[in-house]
Every structure is written in structure tokens, then in C-alpha cells.
């Protein structure tokens, strides 16, 4: 049994952020090794260090038993390491062939290298079933194809270690299965594969070994065949998770939000939301499950007024909305509020004082003075929320980025919930939030439901969806592929729907 990779006591600091703390990892040659952990656990950083993209602050890397110095990706490539990044490292304006050629051109002039590369690609296509059109522009091909290009990039450089960072985040289940088949073929050919993911089912499905990271540290190592999802999950979060939220029975009232035949096309004309209809009642939580990138974000943004609808209608508390002039501030006035999926991108202004972030979207509220903003009212508003939501430190004048993720998320939630919405749209409410804050947030949402408000919850965490929702809608490819009540939902069934296997087809 030989080790392909050994990482010994790796530390990495970004300024005052300690992303990797004394990480150790051993990977056996010819195996598929999974690395799991929550967002921000330090997986991607560790892999970027292994790939030479970041330099480690301290520590030792051994490849095939020999100590290696990684000054840049060039060194990693020379040592036979290839990496498929979560965000594909492709140049969209160039062709597939040029992308694969990049960094491995084989001579000063491109023409000779191009011919040789075409031949090489033909061979690889035969061996692994990795077919691509070398002359297509990357901008014109789909996500699955792009991933192939990334894998080919690694293989043509002679990689025997392949790192894949969250490879299935943007894939449909079928595409993901194809990928796993391909990975098994590669392993059987003697390649070593490192698979980074936070999806436990994938780990169980495809890996031989699994390492768990938590808060920048390596928390546990398991042989996949000798462990269980529960054991891994416990290691990930560091204590027994209780995702079961105490909930009373739902008491649905009148329909507060109705969506009819919503269609959203993006700027490239690609249909993101495909004829989606549903209704949301007072006093219920409806969860939307799905692999990320299947139209949930666009649906949420369209309902919030941020995305233009291509067609379809929205009715809010019985009143139809003029969808040709969707506008977030108008929706807020009508009582529809929105906790966005990405608080850094949408929900907060990180350089603002926290109290200023606390009025984002409500800057025209009469509560904050006339022509001039009433600073005292702005500050006291957040100061009150800080008490109710236990936001620390309790200083509304600190800049927003000096708060932790959980406290930042609470600022957003407090802002949207405390103004008494009729309908609350919630996207990924606990992403990058610590366990304590997760419990608090879940309780708060449940309380809001019990107070007779309507909540639409979008989350890629199936557990979260199942714990909170009264009804569950599943989206795949922009469509709603099925609906389940809380009582008759199970993960296996939902997984099929997420994969696009619809009720009718089944």
C-alpha cells in the first residue's frame, strides 16, 4: 500500500484568518478519497495548497513519498497533480482545444502543438469516453461538457492525482452519475482521486476513504465502507446535530402569494424558470428543494422583484402585481420581504456601519426621518434588534464586516422579519452560519409561521428543507418536478425528483 499524497501539519493564514490549522492527510494510491466539511471548513484552501495555487504558511507536502515544494501550479502539474475547480478555470472566448493547450502548448508556435493535442484528445476520448468538440468555443458549450474539458486538461498533462472541488454542485443527478462512473474508470486505471464535497450521499456512493474537515482542522478519517452518514455528519458539525425543529401542526389560512406560470429567461436567452406555478398560504412554510443552479435562485429573485419576469403573473394577498414593473421596494411596501441567498452579495453592505446595513431596502421608510435620514432612529432600530436576536457585539456603529457570519445573517433576518412581513422569502438561511445560530434561525422562522405569516424557503440542504417545510416543492431544470407534504416526504423520493424524474414519468 503506497501513499500518493501526504500532507503534514499544513497551516494557512490569510491576514488574520487562519484557514488551515495543522492539517494532516494521507491518500492511498489508486483510491477515491473524499474530503467533506461544511462551507468554510477549509477544504478548498487545502486543495488549492496541494495544487500550488496558494502557498502554505507552514507544513510539508509529500507526493509519492518524496517531499515536494509547491511554489505554483506549475510545480503541482509537474508532479502529476491535476485539479478541477468548483468555478471552472476556462477562458470562455477561447476554443476547447486552446483551453486544453493553455500552459501545455508544446512549442512556441501553436500550430504543431494543436495537431499533437488533437491526436491526444482522440485517444483519451476512446480510453475514458471523454468526448468533446475541440473547435467549439467554451462559451457555447454546457456545464457538463465544460467539466469534461477541465478533466481533459488534467489528463493531457499526465495527471495521476486528480482533485475535484464540488464537482456535482452544478450537475444534474444523471450528469453526476456519469461523472462518478468516469471517476471509477480512472481509479481502476491507477489514478488517485480526491473528491471535495459537502454532500454526504456522494461520499457514501463513490469514495473509498473519507476525511472530515471542521473549522480549518482535520476532524476525522474513515474507511467509507466502515462508516455511516450519521457518523460523518457528527464529525462535520462536531456534536450531535438536531435538525429536528420542534413544530406544532400547520394551520394554513388564506392564500397570500400565488405564482402563475412564471417564466424567467436570462440575458443569454436561456430559460431559468420554466412555467412555475404554486401558491403559498398564511401560516405555512413551503420549501423548494433542488440541486443548486436549477432555477431556485432566479425564482426567488423574480418573486422579490429583482429579476424581470419573461411571462407569468404574481398575486400578493389577492392583489395582482404589475409584473412588467417589478421592483423590490414596491414588493416590500406590499408586505413581501426577502432574506437573500447570499448576504455578502445582496443582503448587506460590508463597508457600512451595521445600523446602515440594517435599513437596506427600507431606506425610504418614514421611520427614518424626512428629507434627511434620522441617524438616531437608524441606530436605535438596530440596537433593539441586537437585543432580540442576540447579535454580538452589541454596537450598531461597527462596520458590518466586523461581525461573524451568524451575526451578519441575524442582522439580515431581523431586518426582514421585524417589519412584519405578510410573505417572507428566505434563501439559504443558514449557509455559513454556526450551529448555535442555525437553531436560533430555525426557531425564529417557525415562530413566524405560527404567527400566521407565509414563508417560502429555498435551500440546497435537504435536511433543512425537510425539517422546516409543511409542503415541499422540488425544482429541476427550472421546472417544478413534484410536490410532497411534510408527512409523505422522504429523501430518496425527493432525490429522484431533484434528478428530474417526474411523477408522470415514474
Amino acid at each position, binding site marked *: 500500500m503506497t501513499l500518493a499524497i501526504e500532507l503534514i501539519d499544513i497551516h494557512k*493564514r*490569510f*491576514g*488574520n484568518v487562519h484557514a488551515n490549522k495543522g492539517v494532516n492527510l494521507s491518500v492511498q494510491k489508486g483510491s477515491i478519497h473524499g474530503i467533506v466539511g461544511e462551507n468554510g471548513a477549509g477544504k478548498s484552501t487545502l486543495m488549492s495548497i496541494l495544487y500550488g495555487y496558494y502557498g502554505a*504558511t507552514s507544513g510539508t507536502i509529500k507526493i509519492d513519498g518524496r517531499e515536494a515544494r509547491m511554489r505554483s501550479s506549475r510545480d503541482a502539474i509537474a508532479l502529476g497533480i491535476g485539479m478541477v475547480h468548483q468555478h471552472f478555470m476556462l477562458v470562455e472566448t477561447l476554443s476547447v482545444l486552446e483551453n486544453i493547450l493553455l500552459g501545455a502548448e508544446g512549442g512556441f508556435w501553436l500550430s504543431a502543438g494543436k495537431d499533437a493535442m488533437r491526436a491526444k484528445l482522440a485517444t483519451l476520448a476512446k480510453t475514458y469516453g471523454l468526448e468533446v468538440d475541440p473547435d467549439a468555443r467554451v462559451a457555447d458549450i454546457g456545464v457538463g461538457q465544460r467539466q469534461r474539458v477541465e478533466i481533459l486538461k488534467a489528463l493531457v498533462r499526465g495527471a495521476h492525482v486528480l482533485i475535484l472541488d464540488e464537482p456535482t454542485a452544478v450537475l444534474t443527478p444523471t450528469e453526476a452519475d456519469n461523472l462518478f462512473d468516469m471517476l471509477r474508470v480512472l481509479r481502476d486505471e491507477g489514478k488517485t482521486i480526491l473528491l471535495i464535497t459537502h454532500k454526504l450521499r456522494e461520499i457514501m456512493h463513490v469514495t473509498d476513504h473519507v476525511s472530515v474537515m471542521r473549522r480549518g482542522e482535520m476532524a476525522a478519517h474513515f474507511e467509507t465502507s466502515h462508516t455511516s452518514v450519521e457518523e460523518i455528519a457528527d464529525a462535520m458539525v462536531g456534536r450531535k446535530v438536531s435538525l429536528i425543529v420542534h413544530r406544532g401542526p400547520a394551520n394554513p389560512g388564506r392564500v397570500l402569494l400565488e405564482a402563475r406560470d412564471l417564466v424567467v429567461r436570462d440575458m443569454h436567452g436561456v430559460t431559468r424558470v420554466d412555467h412555475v406555478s404554486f401558491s403559498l398560504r398564511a401560516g405555512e412554510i413551503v420549501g423548494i428543494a433542488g440541486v443548486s443552479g436549477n432555477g431556485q435562485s432566479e425564482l426567488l429573485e423574480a418573486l*422579490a*422583484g*429583482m429579476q424581470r419576469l419573461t411571462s407569468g403573473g404574481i398575486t400578493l394577498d389577492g392583489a395582482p402585481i404589475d409584473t412588467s414593473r417589478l*421592483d*423590490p*421596494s*414596491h*414588493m*416590500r411596501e406590499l408586505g413581501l420581504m*426577502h432574506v*437573500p441567498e447570499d448576504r455578502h*452579495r*445582496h*443582503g*448587506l*453592505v*460590508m*463597508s*457600512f456601519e451595521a445600523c*446602515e446595513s440594517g*435599513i*437596506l*431596502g427600507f*431606506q*425610504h421608510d418614514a421611520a*427614518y426621518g424626512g*428629507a*434627511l*435620514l434620522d*441617524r438616531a432612529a437608524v441606530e436605535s432600530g438596530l440596537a433593539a434588534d441586537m437585543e432580540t436576536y442576540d447579535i454580538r457585539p452589541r454596537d450598531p456603529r461597527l462596520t458590518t*464586516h466586523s461581525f461573524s457570519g451568524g451575526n451578519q445573517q441575524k442582522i439580515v433576518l431581523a431586518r426582514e422579519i421585524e417589519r412584519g412581513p405578510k410573505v417572507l422569502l428566505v434563501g439559504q438561511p443558514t449557509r455559513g452560519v454556526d450551529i448555535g445560530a442555525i437553531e436560533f434561525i430555525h426557531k425564529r422562522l417557525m415562530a413566524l409561521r405560527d404567527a400566521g405569516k407565509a414563508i417560502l424557503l429555498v435551500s440546497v440542504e435537504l435536511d433543512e428543507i425537510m425539517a422546516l417545510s409543511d409542503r415541499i416543492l422540488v425544482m429541476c431544470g427550472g421546472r417544478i418536478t413534484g410536490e410532497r407534504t411534510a408527512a409523505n416526504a422522504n429523501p430518496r423520493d425527493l432525490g429522484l425528483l431533484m434528478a428530474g424524474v417526474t411523477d408522470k414519468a415514474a
Partner: protein
Amino acid sequence: MRAAKLPVWADLTLVPLANVVAAFFVSGLVVLAIGENPFNAMRVLISGSLGSLEGISFTLYYATNFIFTGLSVALAYRAGLFNIGAEGQAYLAGLGAALVCLSLPGLPAIILLPLAIVAAGVFGAIWAMIPGWLQAKRGSHIVITTIMFNWIATSLMAWLLVNSMRAPGSMQPETKSFPPAALMPKFDGILSLFGIAVPSSPLNVSFLLALIAAAFVWLLVWRTRLGYEIRTLGANASAADYAGIGTTRVIVITMGLSGMLAGGLAVNEVLGVQNRLLLEFTSGYGFVGIAVALMGRAHPVGVVLASLLFGMLYQGGAELAFDQPRITRDMIVVIQGLVVLFAGALEGMFRTPIAAVLGLFRRTDEPDSRSA
């Protein structure tokens, strides 16, 4: 753009100070290289700008121009817009003022001047709103469009002054003089009414307008709802989208206000000093506004202070050129360029050591990696 986090006071004092010192140090080397004594030059520069009442008046007169253009650049910058077009906007503002003054010659000053000032503001605003609108609606990069608009303004104004507005029989492409009522009251004139004798200088009430504009910008940016929206747009455009802030509206309004502020340059130069419209009266003050805004950290107080410094440079530089002909006024352009370089493009160079000295971090091994 921030390399290291500093407390606000250090950000507003130490960093600009370090930038200026660096710019002056390099300038000193240049003076040395052309065979003059940099300390002597420095002395002339300071005594020429602050050593007499006349010098101070001229310093404040130049500073007036810089406060207006600096505020113009700073306000747009707060909304995330890089307005390089203050020069062209001020140029067009001069046209607005001239049209009012030439077409309504009979009016008394109390009516004519406010009208001319408003016209200058409106013309400057319109010339800035077009690139703003193109950015918001068509995605045309505002840096490129404002550069192009500067050149288009140059051609347009040359054409107007040469062909339609030139005073009959004049050798120069310039309009005839405006009626005396169109002249902004000068400080020397006002003070002499109270029996205080000060040397004659171009310093006029535009300077007070500039200070009022600075206070207005502060109030607008930090205390109004519009200012909140401007800052949100500048700090996080997608959050502005989320908050329902009409991006197009805010961009166009901000650029309009920015152009209006640039128009203040025309008020000071055309209405305050020249009393007629002439070619290239903006003489690069619009570009200095960029240096001023960068040095003033896009804050009105910083802009006023930086404007005073640049006013000193201009006035002291004129005295220097007068006194030591080998050091031409181009020296001032070099210093400006160096300030822009150190305060703008290389600002991180001094933040890091300052942050280290202040001991803000327990670890300073990789202070570059944090970005705001």
C-alpha cells in the same frame, strides 16, 4: 483598493501625508537633477503661496477651482463611478453661463448672476448625465465615455467660439466681455467696502460657494436617503439592486450632480475672473480634481484640505517659476502626477507600513491579502 485596514483618523491624515511626502521627495530629486536647490524651491513655494495676503488670496482662488472639481470627482466616486470628465463638464458649464450673460445683458447682478450660475450647473450636469445614462443603460464604460466627452467638448467649444460666439474683430476665439453685472463680487472689492485694503486678486465669492458645496456634498452623502443610495451603489451594486435602488436613476442623478459641481469651475473662472468665455479656460483643473479627490479620500473635508494644498502648489509654483526660471511651472504638473501616483495607484505602499507601525495586527505577515 484597500490593502490594509486603518482607523479612520489614520486613513484621513497619515496616509495622505505619507503620499504627499513621497511625492515631494521625488519632486525634490527632480529639482536637484535640474540643478536647483530643492529646499530653496520649497521655501519660495511656501512663502509665495502663504507669505503675503496676495499670495493667500491667489492660493484660495486656485483652491476654489479644485474644491469644485475635486467634489465632482469625489461624489461620483462614492457611487462607484470614475468621472474623468470634469474638464469637459466645466467647459460646457462655461457655455451655459456665457449664453445667459450674453443673451440677457440688461439684468441686474442679483438676477443675472444666479441665472448664470444655474445655467452653468445645468449645462455641466447634462454633459455628465449623458455618459451616466450610457453607463447605466448601455453598459458603456464611463471612464472611456467621459474621456471621449472631454475631447468632444473641446471640439464643440472650439467650433462655437471660432464660428458663432467670437467677438467681432477679435483675434482670439473668445466672446465679447459680459456686462459688468455678470461679474462675481470679488473679495478685494467687498472688503474695501468695509475699509479693509487687500491686494487685488481673482478671489471672489465663488470660494464661499465652493465651501457651501463641500458642506452640501457631505450632507447629501452621509445624511440623506439619496446619499445612502449613492453609497450603497458604490459599495455593493448588487445590494443596491436587492434594496430596490433604481440604479439608472441614481447613476444619472449622481453624474448630474457631479457635472453640476464641475460647473463650479466655470463659475469661478468665467463669471469670477475672465468675464467672458474663452478657449480652454478649464486649463486642466478638471484633471487636478482627480488628484484632489484621491488625496482627499473622496471626503468633502479631505477634498477641501487637498484643494488648499494644490492651491498652494499652483500659486507657489507661479512664484517659483517667476523667481527661478529654470524651475518652470511644469514642476507643479510633475508634483500633481506624483501625488496621483502615490495617493491613487500606489496607496497600498504606505498603508501597509503605517498599519504595521500602528500595530493594528498581531500578525503582519500577509497584510496584502485582505481586501475590503
